[in-house]
């Protein structure tokens, strides 16, 4: 029993250390990739960002709607329904927006990144690049990592905006909350630190989600089963890491 726990702990530390070193290499290669292979980064921003837009926008609309419903139904009991906008705004900007976007990103773009890199490995494409004296880290991994890092804050901003619109539709259009109160209260209560918190989270989540996705793909076993397992691990590890960092960053800002 103790030996199992020890083995698991050592395995975790080994993987964590490996991921930290991998991250350091990605950061080291980043300036070179940005200057020499900028078009690859732009393509990956499109790949991870633009192709996730539909799922992000639809989810944002419904999440904002639910937030509006819950906030209105709770605040109505205290005759404070005019403050619905505050709850929707603070909730979306500070926590729900970045977290939901990161979780959706892990499910849509993260899994795509992992399986793409894993399949390239399984079909010897990465080995072929190495044999052509082209470093797959610089050509394949870093552009995908940067694409995710850049795309995440943009997707979070879109998710949050659409979420606010969804909340507005429910509170103002459905339940008749005054439109002026809805937006004015939000504007009065929220300050720039709340926005910074959301931006910080989206950047950290972007780094974490993209790092986990490319790490899992790059280190997957070169078999169909190995790629499948790596894809699953991407979602699981990213979800746990995002929730953990969400708590930590929230605690820091409070």
């Amino acid at each position: 029993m103790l030996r199992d726990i020890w083995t698991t702990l050592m395995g975790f530390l080994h993987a964590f250390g490996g991921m930290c070193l991998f991250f350091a290499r990605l950061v080291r290669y980043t300036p070179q990739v940005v200057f020499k292979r900028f078009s690859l980064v732009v393509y990956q921003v499109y790949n991870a960002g633009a192709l996730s837009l539909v799922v992000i926008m639809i989810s944002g609309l419904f999440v904002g709607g639910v937030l509006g419903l819950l906030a209105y139904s709770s605040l109505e009991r205290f005759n404070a329904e005019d403050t619905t906008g505050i709850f929707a705004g603070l909730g979306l900007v500070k926590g729900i927006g970045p977290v939901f976007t990161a979780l959706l990103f892990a499910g849509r773009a993260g899994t795509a990144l992992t399986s793409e890199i894993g399949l390239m490995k399984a079909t010897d494409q990465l080995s072929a690049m190495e044999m052509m004296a082209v470093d797959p880290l610089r050509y394949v991994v870093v552009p995908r990592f940067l694409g995710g890092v850049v795309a995440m804050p943009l997707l979070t901003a879109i998710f949050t905006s659409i979420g606010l619109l969804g909340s507005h539709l429910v509170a103002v259009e459905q339940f008749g909350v005054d439109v002026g109160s809805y937006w004015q209260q939000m504007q009065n209560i929220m300050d720039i630190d709340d926005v910074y918190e959301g931006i910080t989270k989206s950047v950290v989540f972007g780094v974490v989600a993209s790092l986990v996705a490319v790490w899992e793909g790059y280190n997957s076993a070169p078999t169909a089963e190995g790629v499948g397992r790596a894809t699953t691990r991407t979602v699981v590890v990213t979800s746990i890491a995002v929730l953990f960092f969400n708590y930590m960053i929230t605690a820091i800002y409070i």
Partner: protein
Amino acid sequence: MLHAIDVNDFCYATRAFGAIPGPSRSSFNTWSRNLSDTLIEIRDVDFSRGDRTIFRNLSLTIERGDVTAIMGPSGTGKTTLLQLITRQLTPDRGQILVDGINVAALNQAELYRLRQRFGVLFQNGALLTDMSVFENVAFPIREHTRLPDSLIRHVVLTKLHAVGLRGAAQLMPAQLSGGMARRVALARAIAMDPDVLLYDEPFVGLDPISMGVIVKLVGQISDALDITSIVVSHDVHDVSAVADYCYVIADGGVVAAGTPAELDAESSELVNQFMHGLPDGPVGFHYDAPDYREQLFGAEKD
């Protein structure tokens, strides 16, 4: 239709362009078929995967300009040997020298410079699936040179013409048959005019026509480009048709070496079994297992 003139044409074309800078060409320029000198030397190499020993004290040499075949039964480490030569793997002991350079001692930049002198044909082609045939062949040229697009286009079309697939330049890898993918991979492998071409099981899984084309290309490209070729294969008949020299690898080392004719006349049981495809011999039909009768009925006795 594949003509020898195709290959000569594209050699002339690429040389005439003086197109491709990059790795040192000194060895290439001084090469001569009459001058027998060693390009790759494997010295006393040990290599294991986990508890399993793949090579023990393996030593062999690859002569410059030759087509050298590495043959042997499945699982004896032929592909591993290629991976050791290109330092995808590192030996546990011993040295691998390429043109006198110990590949294990190179840093990444030096290793990549050395690898620019290699062209590798992978067993499955390993084409980059998100690029067209043209872009696959252009890939190493774009990565290692600053040639204008018009010149890259000429070089790529010339290479594709040499393997008979100029007309397939705009196809995607998913649209190619296995044989075509192998030929595109060959065009990509020679895109940088390498000094050494390594073929990993180039004949596996091909129909007779595609196999004939690949066999012919291996011989023609080696002759026309003055390339040193290493062909890993267990296809005795086809590889013998193009090889100048053969090594048979088994039991962690070289069990026989010589020209195809010499190996054909080899009296060793193992080589005889391998060369003539006998189902039983030193390489047994059965994988190591406990006594058959005891395994079947032993449990019942207990």
